[in-house]
């Protein structure tokens, strides 16, 4: 009898091929260092997933995604600008998307944001083929904050910027915005969908496992009833969980202020906010864009925070008109 039970159990074990959560490629895509078919550029000591569209001699338009920890998959509508005479460069930031994972310690120093500014600077230097080639930035959410930080650091290198709903150029402003946009509703399905996996995927340190778990957490902001106006989820490759968590902790510990030198940036900036993001709105857009001496604030209709994905039909002509004025 016991023999029969043992044989049966062995059969069951054999039938169930058990996978390991952290096996590369099992639950999250391989990254550029693991898969050589992913287009990439080595800069500043890391390997970034990069895609380019258009003629390399045209004015550069660098597209900067949100997060931190997001990727550029939901911003790919912006490759339309390549048909309008721009050389469009998308990249996944350090440690996120299909870019190479990096150790958490890289994001823990007081100068962690400088690392991202330097990555962007190295990328611009990589693609800029002459001193007369103009460089424009298109940043969304955290990407718009990073664009602001870059302009604050290198105002002379940028010929224009389209900024879509950055939380704020200072940490207190970003905190204030996040308190509205990510307000926790304890009795809603959204909080369960985001957090219940934490009792199953718990206490692990492998980046692949943390990235997979972050996929569930990221669903919170797009759940039905969200205040940022997204009608649903949007595609991504991989949430860079370590970069996201460490940079948020870093901001909480050290804070940031990207406004010190913005008064010297006289170029007009196009500052966009979305019609359906009730946590943002025109007043907040005017408040957080005020450090720029020359700014045009405009609303993108019929969409929420993820405006390059859900609001492209309205955003595209507004951004193109602006870029054509400065090219």
């Amino acid at each position: 009898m016991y023999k029969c039970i043992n044989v049966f159990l062995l059969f069951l074990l054999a039938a169930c091929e058990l996978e390991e959560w952290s096996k590369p490629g099992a639950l999250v895509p391989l990254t550029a260092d693991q898969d050589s078919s992913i287009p990439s550029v080595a800069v500043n000591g890391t390997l970034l997933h990069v895609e380019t569209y258009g003629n390399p001699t045209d004015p550069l338009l660098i597209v900067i995604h949100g997060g931190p920890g997001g990727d550029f998959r939901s911003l790919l509508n912006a490759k339309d600008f390549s048909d309008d005479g721009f050389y469009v460069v998308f990249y996944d930031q350090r440690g996120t998307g299909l870019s190479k994972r990096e150790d958490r310690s890289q994001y823990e120093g007081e100068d962690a944001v400088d690392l991202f500014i330097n990555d962007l600077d190295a990328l611009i230097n990589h693609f800029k083929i002459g001193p007369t080639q103009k460089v424009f930035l298109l940043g969304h959410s955290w990407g718009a904050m990073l664009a602001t930080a870059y302009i604050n650091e290198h105002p002379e290198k940028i010929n224009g910027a389209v900024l879509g709903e950055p939380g704020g150029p200072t940490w207190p402003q970003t905190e204030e915005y996040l308190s509205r946009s990510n307000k926790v509703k304890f009795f809603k399905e959204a909080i369960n969908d985001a957090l219940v996996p934490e009792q199953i995927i718990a206490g692990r340190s492998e980046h692949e496992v943390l990235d997979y778990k972050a996929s569930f957490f990221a669903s919170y902001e797009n759940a039905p009833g969200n205040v940022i106006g997204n009608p649903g989820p949007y595609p991504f490759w991989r949430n860079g969980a370590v970069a996201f968590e460490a940079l948020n902790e870093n901001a909480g510990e050290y804070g940031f202020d990207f406004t010190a030198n913005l008064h010297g940036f006289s170029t007009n900036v196009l500052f966009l906010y979305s019609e359906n993001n009730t946590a943002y709105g025109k007043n907040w857009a005017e408040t957080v864009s005020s450090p720029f001496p020359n700014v045009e604030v405009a609303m993108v209709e019929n969409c929420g925070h993820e405006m390059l994905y859900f609001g492209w039909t309205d955003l595209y002509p507004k951004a193109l008109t602006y870029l054509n004025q400065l090219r």
Partner: protein
Amino acid sequence: MKTKYLIVTFLSVLTHHTLRAQDVNFRALDNTKHLVSAHVGGDYGTYYGVSYGYVLKTRYTPLIVGTEFTLPFGNDVLDDWKWKTSVQGEVWRRENFSLVLKPSVIFRRYESTMARMYNVGADVSLNFGYVQPKWGVVAVVNFDKAIATHIKNGLLKEYYPEIKDGWYVATGGNFKFGARLQYSFGTWDTFVTVGKQFGQNFEDNPTLPYFAEVSVQKRINKW
């Protein structure tokens, strides 16, 4: 004795899943045969549930074989749930001091647009404290281990078609450290537990760092 053994075996097999299940005031059991409870709380989100415990009188200490069903709050009632079964007993006592051991087995389900998971886990709790028939203060230590999980990816499979569905092993675990106040009156017990939770490596910790639970229990001598 044989009957009791069979009941324990039957209930253990029936339940073979758990975590929080059935708080008990061992000083107030008297002739109690059944424990029926309702609980509400928050840890990885907010939840509510019911539990049942059968009291087995043994030579050394009463043993409570319990089972508990917990649902998170939210619009989709049965997409996520946890079923937990435990056996608990007082493994040490001196006057009013008490140490209770509670091993459990857990079966849980999770579903969202991203993925569906079925998980088999185990958990063990140690409760040490000062307990009188009317009231008590107890320190609670709990470890919840997720042993194996079956994943069927939803939206994540659209985003990444090569993603692998199937069984994944040794997925992780969480510690809980807390304190429990308990108060008994008539045939009723109430328990309030609060504490902090950590991932098993104390680095990858739950987003909500604290947990709290309130439960109300009816002691029944006969059905």
